[in-house]
């Protein structure tokens, strides 16, 4: 046991970090959201946010994030499940994770070539007689690339949850006469729900705020909350409006965290710790 003063010393740098980089930035965003572009104190930004333009933007942003999360989950869950059954599962998991370590920008850039006018997909379409179509700058390409980016992040927590599952429970369920589907629905899925929840959390929240993929892949066709914030801060230089959108994004984030939060210590996103 160490004495109190050394312990207090540990708290100083960390506490300073929390104050400066967690609390202060959020407070500043809220503060700036109360000013218009001329620096007057006003609630006009909030009124503007509830106008049809921004509400529509928010809705469509949620819709895209929902689709991205859904498709990622549909691919990631079976992948994670099958992975846990492979022989060298840690190695296979590592192989799945490696692409997520490659710079995001590079992967997105690759799709500019793949979906391009003369890219392999269009060449394939031409070969089977569909003829080349405009793939880049469409909703489809945006969702595809986003799902591609998020799959590994979705797989990881689900894999950990399934991996921690006691196989005896599945055997028991089988022995008691449950079909594989019933076993999945009543035993496996409920017990791995925490992994699914953290997967949704790490996908849905970033998907709401993507701006790089929208710019590079979707052109200006898809506008998300993230694109809007970037636009207001770096292009229009209207920090007040940008902060207002950010305030709502932070609110949404807390709501999502509330829904996908878990009681278990550490959380599945931390990985296998015990």
């Amino acid at each position: 046991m160490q004495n109190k003063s050394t312990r207090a010393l540990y708290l100083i740098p960390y506490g300073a970090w929390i104050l400066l980089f967690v609390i202060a930035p959020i407070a500043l965003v809220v503060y700036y959201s109360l000013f218009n572009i001329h620096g007057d104190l006003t609630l006009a930004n909030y009124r503007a946010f509830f106008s049809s333009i921004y509400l529509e933007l928010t809705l469509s942003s949620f819709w895209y994030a929902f689709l991205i999360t859904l498709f990622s989950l549909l691919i990631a869950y079976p992948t994670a499940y099958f992975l846990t059954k492979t022989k060298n599962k840690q190695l296979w998991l590592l192989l799945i994770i490696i692409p997520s370590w490659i710079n995001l920008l590079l992967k997105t850039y690759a799709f500019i070539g793949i979906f391009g006018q003369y890219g392999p997909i269009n060449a394939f379409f031409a070969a089977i007689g569909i003829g080349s179509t405009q793939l880049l700058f469409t909703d489809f390409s945006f969702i595809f690339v986003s799902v591609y980016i998020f799959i590994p992040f979705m797989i990881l927590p689900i894999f950990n949850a399934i991996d921690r599952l006691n196989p005896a429970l599945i055997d028991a369920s089988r022995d008691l006469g449950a079909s594989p589907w019933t076993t999945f629905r009543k035993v496996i899925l409920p017990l791995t729900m925490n992994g699914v929840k953290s997967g949704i959390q790490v996908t849905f929240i970033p998907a709401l705020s993507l701006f790089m993929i929208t710019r590079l892949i979707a052109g200006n066709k898809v506008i998300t909350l993230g694109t809007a914030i970037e636009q207001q801060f770096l292009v229009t230089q209207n920090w007040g409006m940008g902060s207002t959108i950010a305030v709502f994004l932070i609110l949404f984030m807390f709501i999502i965290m509330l829904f996908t939060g878990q009681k278990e210590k550490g959380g599945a996103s931390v990985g296998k710790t015990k």
Partner: protein
Amino acid sequence: MGKQSNIQKFFLTIVFIILYAPIFFLIFYSFNSNGTMSSFESFTWEHYAAVFEDTRLIMIVFNTVIVALLSALVSTAVGVLGALAIVYLKNRKLRNTLLSLNNVLIVSPDVIIGASFLILFTAVGVRLGFASVLISHIAFSIPIVVLMVLPKLLEMSDSLIDAARDLGASGRDVLTRVIIPYIKPGIFAGFFLALTYSLDDFAVTFFVTGNGFSTLSVEIYSMARAGITLTINALSGLIFIVTVGLVLVYYALNRRNRTPVTGVKK
């Protein structure tokens, strides 16, 4: 559980192909003398040569690595102290509050972190550039280090510390000879994650970097917006090799570190 069925193998294979195809697609065309990402003409190293001749690009790579190493080092130090501080807090409520605050930056979208840090730096008067980028990277890497170190600290049994105490170790000895060696795998994991967070970051850097300073992600973004340049492809080939190398090193280290721990537990 039964053996792997063919459907499962097929499914996994498809996922693997989809995950790796874009990366190999990029690398494949980095050898294309044609200069496009569509028709392969003939093999060339010229794009790789272009990467090494571009001194500006080399400087940017250098900047990126420096920022990553420095931010990982500092955030690991602060993160370990933070984890220790959290563990020593006896007040449950305060502890949970700290943990929630810790996780805010992990779940926050990059755009929010970038925008709010931009406001912060402007309000405080930090000039945008190397300093602002480095500080932001340190700030968003700290919580992940805490999350990596904390479970190790929590699973450590108190009797280890008591034993050290009874044998006459000072507070400092307990920290450097008992606690730190025990939580070392967590510290390593935190450091590596901080490193990759920094190397991979685009959005936050994009917001807080000024005109004079650029990291690789930001540079690739502006290059990609301008259109296809096979220099980026060559760069991605190099980055892929380095990444795989790093992952293997990390995997090897992790394995070596993990063996004794599990050995004791079983």
